[in-house]
């Protein structure tokens, strides 16, 4: 209509034609599959029908009809048009139906029919397929009767089956034979042994079947047309063939000895009798997987040699890989056994020679990826079998390096790179840090692009960290550092990275630093310096993660140095008199190496370094910087009771305070940090008094400049400690703080009743100093506080403050404390008049009656036994 009406003709017609064409093609493709489906369905239907009649005949004990209908049913197995998959479906259906017939045969025998007659009469069937299926079924029942030797029947069946030479039908028939004779093979210890033959008969029967099946299987390949499809079909059917080997391995009689002397040589003979790639490969794999690993280990040499002589197109490496993987698992599970075996024979060398051969022969044609697959499996096996042989691992790596050398850069695809990564990371799991001693390791690593190298580096770090093996050797550390280079340095070509990944990586590096440990500070110092070098060279992003850990490592070093100096000092005092008694643990190591420290190692140097590191952090991240500065101050104060580094520490403190003032803007952060500063400063003891005064007054000022009044109050309250601590005492200044606090609290309370907690805090602080024996604490002040709280408490309780409960509990505890002090007659406390507050918590707290009684009970019980 379109054409007629609009006249857009030529183009339109072209399109219509195209659509029709493509529809046709589509439909044809469709019908191919549909045909199969339809035909299969038809056959299945016939089978169902005939099976129904067969069962009906069986129900009426009419064996003749049963046989007739089962023949009709089995005729469907002729099905020349079905693909292997569909044929399998059909086969399974028939298989199930034949079970009914099988039990009918048994029933017939029980009723007194001679099995020999039955065995004959099923052979009257005209067509070979039904005849042989029936024969096998009858044969199986015949064997069960024990009237005739199992091996005779089996051999007869095996002979008759030869009539089916059609590959597909033959394979399935033989598979049926295998299934049926599964539990009827004469084997060691079963009922068919003896008269029925020995397991050797069974072995030869199965081997015979395997040989024939293998032939049929190969024949399936047929002519060269449609090769790919045929191969696929064949691979679908491989299980049928493999069933033979499974059966063999299931025989009790097949011991290691029999296997070595009889089964394996015959199997290998069958395998090598053809040159078919699929068959050779699959059967080799079957041997590897079906028989116990121990058997294969003992026969490794034969296996390997034979494998080498297979069709060159065979994927030998797949066989090797599965063999090695299995052996690896085996050796992991049976450590002791494997040791014995490895003593007797050099498995490593065997594999090595054979693998080298493969590489030599096929190295040119095979893809690098596959060759590396092989090496990976080999490595895995070696690692699991030879636990401590780094030289072996090194050898493997070396051959990999040789391999890589020969390749052009284009052949490194994603998979081969992955394999190289595997090669590099597998040894880590078991050998960890010892990989560092392998000279081929970095060579191989060089073949990787940056991302992959980094991946490996991460793995290395993880491995080293997970072992928690201390890093105590400068050379090791240097090697390690060179390995993890990708983590330490930015590479130009490298693109963006997820921040969390980056963080994870850098944290790994940081954790490495923490592993540094040596009894001698000199060594630690050297190692840390080694770390410091690359860290310094890196960009800030990295330093943010690496420096803190390095700083802490140095701090630890300083601490170690201090202990060292002290003990050395005692040594000198003791005049090298005695060893043992007084030494602490670190010193119990041999001492010849650490008699004297190098002159360049002293606190000064260490502190300088730390400071430098902290400075560079601080410039980027003020908050972290302040915290690090505080840490430095602590360590200085710890190591320097003589205040030798007064000026130096002052500088640091000043830097920290400047940072605080200039860089921190957020009020909440400010509050947190200033509290930290206060906390640290009250224990510091590395300043001259003058400097300390200056710093402390600065801090107090900062405190009182906090944004919120209540925060100010708490912060200033804390500052009291700055003036009253074990190193410094200035009561007047402290009380200035108190006064200030009270003043602020008062203002706060006026504005909001919720701020009553400030008073509670102040009260506590008073009580603290009172009990610490600070004389300047006035009881009056305390009493004022208490009274004030008393007045306002009801109001406070009814307020909607979030923390009413916690404040009340605080208050209750405080009053209890006062009460206790009073009772114990502590000085000053007697005069305080503080009411008891009922803690709200009492109401909601669950009773503990039950648990207490339980505890009592236990105690009593125990006591009795004691």
């Amino acid at each position: 209509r379109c054409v007629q009406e609009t006249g857009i003709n030529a183009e339109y017609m072209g399109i219509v034609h195209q659509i029709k064409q493509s529809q046709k093609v589509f439909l044809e493709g469709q019908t191919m599959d549909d045909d199969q489906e339809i035909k299969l369905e038809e056959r299945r239907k016939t089978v169902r029908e005939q099976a129904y009649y067969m069962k009906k005949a069986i129900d009426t004990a009419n064996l003749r009809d049963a046989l007739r209908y089962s023949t009709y049913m089995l005729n469907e197995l002729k099905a020349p048009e079905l693909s292997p998959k569909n044929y399998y479906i059909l086969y399974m259906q028939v298989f199930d139906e034949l079970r009914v017939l099988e039990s009918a045969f048994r029933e017939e025998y029980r009723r007194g029919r001679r099995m020999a007659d039955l065995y004959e009469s099923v052979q009257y069937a005209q067509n070979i397929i039904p005849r042989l299926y029936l024969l096998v079924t009858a044969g199986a029942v015949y064997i069960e009767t024990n009237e005739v030797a199992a091996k005779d029947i089996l051999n007869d069946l095996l002979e008759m089956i030869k009539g089916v030479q059609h590959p597909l039908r033959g394979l399935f028939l033989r598979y049926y034979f295998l299934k049926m004779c599964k539990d009827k093979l004469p084997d060691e210890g079963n009922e068919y042994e003896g008269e029925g033959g020995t397991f050797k008969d069974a072995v030869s029967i199965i081997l015979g079947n395997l040989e024939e099946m293998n032939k049929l299987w190969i024949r399936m390949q047929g002519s060269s047309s449609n090769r790919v499809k045929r191969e696929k079909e064949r691979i679908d059917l491989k299980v049928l063939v493999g069933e033979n080997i499974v059966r063999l391995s299931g025989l009790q009689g097949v011991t290691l000895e029999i296997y070595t002397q009889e089964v394996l040589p015959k199997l290998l003979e069958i395998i090598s009798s053809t040159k078919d790639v699929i068959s050779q490969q699959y059967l080799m794999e079957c041997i590897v997987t079906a028989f116990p690993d121990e058997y294969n280990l003992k026969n490794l040499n034969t296996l390997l040699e034979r494998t080498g002589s297979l069709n060159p197109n065979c994927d030998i490496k797949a066989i090797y890989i599965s063999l090695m993987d299995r052996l690896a698992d085996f050796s992991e599970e049976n450590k002791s056994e494997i040791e014995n075996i490895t003593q007797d024979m050099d498995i490593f060398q065997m594999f090595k020679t054979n693998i080298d051969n493969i590489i030599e022969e096929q190295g040119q044609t095979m893809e690098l990826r596959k060759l590396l697959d092989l090496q990976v499996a080999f490595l895995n096996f070696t690692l699991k079998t030879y636990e401590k042989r780094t030289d072996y691992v090194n050898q493997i790596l070396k051959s990999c390096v040789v391999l890589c050398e020969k390749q052009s850069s284009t052949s490194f695809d994603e998979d081969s790179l992955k394999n190289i990564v595997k090669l590099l990371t597998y040894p880590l799991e078991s050998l960890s840090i010892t990989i560092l001693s392998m000279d081929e390791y970095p060579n191989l690593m060089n073949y990787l692009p940056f991302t992959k190298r980094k991946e490996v580096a991460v793995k290395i770090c993880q491995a080293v960290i997970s072992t928690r093996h201390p890093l105590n050797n400068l050379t090791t550390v240097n090697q390690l550092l060179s390995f993890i280079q990708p983590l330490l340095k930015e590479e130009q070509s490298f693109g963006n990275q997820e921040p969390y990944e980056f963080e994870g990586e850098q944290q790994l590096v940081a954790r490495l630093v923490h592993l540094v440990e040596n009894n001698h500070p000199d060594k630690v110092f050297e190692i840390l310096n080694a770390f410091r070098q690359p860290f310094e060279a890196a960009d800030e992003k990295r330093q943010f993660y690496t420096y803190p850990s390095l700083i802490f490592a140095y701090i630890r070093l300083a601490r170690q140095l201090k202990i060292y100096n002290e003990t050395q000092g005692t040594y000198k005092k003791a005049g090298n008199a005695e060893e043992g008694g007084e030494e602490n643990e670190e010193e119990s190591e041999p001492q010849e190496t650490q008699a004297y420290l190098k002159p360049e190692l002293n606190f000064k140097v260490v502190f300088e370094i730390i400071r430098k590191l902290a400075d560079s952090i601080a410039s980027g991240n003020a908050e972290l910087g302040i915290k690090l500065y505080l840490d430095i101050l602590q360590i200085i104060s710890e190591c320097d009771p003589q205040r030798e580094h007064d000026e130096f520490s002052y500088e640091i403190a000043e830097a920290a305070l400047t940072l605080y003032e200039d860089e921190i803007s957020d009020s909440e952060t400010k509050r947190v940090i200033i509290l930290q500063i206060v906390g640290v400063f009250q224990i510091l003891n590395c300043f001259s008094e003058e400097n300390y005064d200056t710093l402390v007054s600065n801090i107090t000022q900062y405190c009182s400049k906090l944004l919120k009044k209540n925060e100010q109050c708490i912060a200033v309250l804390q500052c009291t400690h700055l003036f009253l601590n074990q190193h410094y005492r200035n009561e007047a200044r402290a009380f200035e703080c108190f006064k200030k606090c009270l003043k602020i609290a008062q203002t706060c309370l006026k504005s909001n009743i919720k701020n009553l907690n400030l008073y509670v805090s102040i009260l506590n602080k008073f009580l603290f100093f009172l009990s610490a024996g600070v004389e300047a604490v006035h009881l009056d002040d305390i009493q004022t506080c208490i009274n004030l709280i008393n007045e306002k408490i009801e109001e406070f309780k009814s307020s909607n403050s979030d923390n009413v409960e916690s404040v009340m509990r605080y208050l209750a505890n405080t009053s209890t404390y006062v009460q206790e002090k009073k009772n114990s007659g502590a000085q000053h406390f007697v005069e305080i008049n503080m009411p008891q507050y009922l803690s709200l918590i009492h109401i909601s707290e669950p009773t503990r009656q039950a648990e207490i009684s339980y505890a009592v009970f236990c105690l009593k019980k125990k006591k009795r036994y004691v």
Partner: protein
Amino acid sequence: FFFLMIRRPPRSTQSRSSAASDVYKRQGQVSIQLGKNKKLEHTGIRVELIGHIEMVYDKAGSSDFTSMGRELEPTGVLFQDKTYNFSFPKFEKQYESYYGSSVKLRYFLRVTINRNYATKIIKEVDFAVLVPATEPEIKKDIQMEVGIEDCLHIEFEYSKAQYHLKDVVIGKVKFMLVRIKIKYMELCIVKQEKYLTGQANQTQTENETLQKFEVMDGCPNKGDVIPIRLYLAGSDLTPTYTDVSNKFSVKYYLNLVLVDSEDRRYFK
């Protein structure tokens, strides 16, 4: 209305031991039962024992090879039921009964009531004759190498050249060369009847495939040996006959047939 009945004597009277002898006493009874208040006029009642070879497609070629008769009643009138005993003491069983598709060898008894004005009343009853013989000595097996040059070459053998009726044919086929695509192989039992036609004294041959027995499915490879086991009990066989009364022979053949993928049949 009347019945005519030829009755076989009770079994006990036949002695088993006499079965071996060629001359066999054949005896029996003929009873004639008349309807109520009827009479039967006749011109004689006669019983005959006849051995007859019948050519199914050639009536002219048919002939009796033996015939004996007994007069049971001379011409007269029967007024009541009557039973006659008869016997053929000198009956010679030369040949075995045979019922083939183109040739039949029959033995039968015939009672004839001749009448003047009406048609004869004839009743025939067949009986079978078996001639026991000693088992022949088995001379040899069958072995043969056959083939088509550069195409197919097989060797087959059967264990025997003579079988009894419930025997089993055991054999094997060895494939020496296979260049064709064989679809299947079957073993056929072929019955061959050869007989002389009456007119031109010519020999006619009639072949009939009694059973097809598939012995191989698919195409074998060079060197494969396919077993054969065929139970004869499953098919309808007769003994082999050679030159019966110079009229006909019956032979059996084992025909090995190979069918290729284009449905060409190769046989021997």
